[in-house]
């Protein structure tokens, strides 16, 4: 096992363990904090894959922005100590069977498939190439994402508004 592998498994373990805490914890603040480690672990894996730009954006946007916003939201809510969130589980057996089957299929797909591979190269900084691709080949996707975000904003505002009876 090379050093690379060890680092990968380390980050993967961080991601999975903290992700497990996010969904099982009864306290919403604990969940939010373990989400921090999930995002961090994912960012680490991005770095290992040579995707430096995405890793930085992951930390800046998710850890720096969204997570802090989430924590603020929790802290500004009344009765923070006894926020009643239901993390109970129902239909454990069918759920476990379905998830188990899906995971088995995905695992076997991962192991048995001949993936398309590329010869490994020394990682280079990707920011310039990404920027160029986004405004040339993928300009349509980029612009459409802008509209998607606009719709998401309008939708969020629409949901959040209280309706007067």
């Amino acid at each position, binding site marked *: 096992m090379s050093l690379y592998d060890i680092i990968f498994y380390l980050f993967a373990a961080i991601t999975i363990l903290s992700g497990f805490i996010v969904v099982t914890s009864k306290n919403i603040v604990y969940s939010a904090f373990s989400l921090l480690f999930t995002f961090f672990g994912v960012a680490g894996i991005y770095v290992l894959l040579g995707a430096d730009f995405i890793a930085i954006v992951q930390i800046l946007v998710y850890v720096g922005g969204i997570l802090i916003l989430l924590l603020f939201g929790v802290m500004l809510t009344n009765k923070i100590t006894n926020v009643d969130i239901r993390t109970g589980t129902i239909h454990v057996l069918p759920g476990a069977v379905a998830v188990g089957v899906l995971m088995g299929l995905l695992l076997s797909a991962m192991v048995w498939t001949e*993936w398309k591979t590329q010869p490994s190269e020394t990682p280079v900084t990707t920011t310039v190439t990404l920027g160029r691709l986004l405004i*040339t080949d993928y300009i349509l996707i980029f612009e459409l994402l802008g509209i998607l975000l606009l719709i998401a904003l309008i939708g969020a505002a629409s949901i959040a508004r209280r309706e007067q*009876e």
Partner: protein
Amino acid sequence: MELSNLSHSLNLLLPELTLSIALLVLVLFDLIFHHDKKIISYVALIGLLATGFFVINQFSLSGFAFSTGNESYRNFGMITIDSFGSFFKLIVIVASVIIVFFSLSSDEIKKTSERIGEYYALIFGMILGMLFMISATDLILIYLSVELLSLSSYVLAGFTKLRERNSEASLKYMIYGSVSSGLMLFGISLVYGMTGTTNLYMINSLIQIPHLNLFTFSFAMILIFAGIGYKISSAPFHFWTPDVYEGAPITITAFLSVASKAAGFALLIRFVKITFVSYIDTSGFWQLIHVFDWKTLIVVISIFTMTLGNFSALWQDNLKRMLAYSSIAHAGYIMLGLAVLSNQGLTAMLIYFAVYLLMNLGAFLVVMLIANKINSEEIDDYDGLGYSSPFLAASLAIFLISLTGLPPTAGFIGKLYLFVALVDANMIGLAVVALLNTVVSLYYYVRVLKHMYLTKPETAIPEIKTSKPNTILVLVLLIPIFIFGIYFTPLVDLAKGCITILGL
């Protein structure tokens, strides 16, 4: 991508561009005219008509836009413009225009007239998503457009917020939607991992290599189908349909049942045709690459979908819920056209969709007009309606008869062409199953008629008067049902001319 290529691409994207601009204008006008929101509906209408104009203009046009990748595949883009796409785009735009008129006379929407700007902005988001779904040939764009459609419809399903059912519909829709789009993403990433590309044309040429892992590839296809199947509400991904259709505002229900389904079907057809067809033989049958058995999958799913939809509809007492199950059943019928995997089947699907647009929107319209007055969609409240308000009852009866598929209505023509396509492809067993299903569906459609004409109401009910514009709208949907039921040649000719899917 060179600049000349960009202008060529933008030229092909005129309907989508118009719609995006209209979306922005809507948001802007919503800010400027916040005292009098009446103008917003007309802005929406003008935007849609302009888009429709460009779609009709594009009927003779075809080409690839926004090509990516290396030199050898430069011709294949992210977007394909062809007559097949234009046909479905026209269906979506016509449905949208009718929905705007629906919204103008719906009491549910009138109660939220403060937020009418948001309402139309979200509807435009949906339409934009649909237009891109119809013409996308790149997995990234496919995913993005499905997401754009879904995000807007989640919000719209719970838009009125006046009843608890609205929020329930919205939340249920969103949870099911996220799961299915997650599955679809898994499928897309598996395909990308095996082929190294997201362009459907390139996948088509790459999957012909002999040592492709068929297990993983089939698994990926089933996952992608889960995402599309959710949009067309085919079993087993239909669970959301009854609850969402019942809880959502009726304008949105009608829109989801026609336009969203049309876009989903267009995406499915294009996906199968471009990615898997190796050649089309002389009699118009599509010969697939032997990597995934689409025929079996679609046959099984369509039988399952229509049987389940029809038999569940038998027990429904709420008209919206009944129409929801009936629309599941119709998704099953339409899928039969794809199962044939031939040009003839495709023509039948196009005819069916044009007819389905009229009759389904019509049924929802009448249900809405009645609900505006009696504030109920329960079948028991329809007792004696045939005598107190003869016009509405008669129109509803005709729409339902057309949904069953009896002559001389257009619904009969739609079903006839589907069954003929099935018989021509030697799939007689399947045609018999579909025919038996139609017989079952007769029961629950006629049950409404029985309540309207044969059951005596417990208390005398007043006449439901419709305003002039509403009467005209009902007639606009009603008259073509008879015209296409008797003189259907133009519709068939149009559909026959619109089966070009660029590819191969």
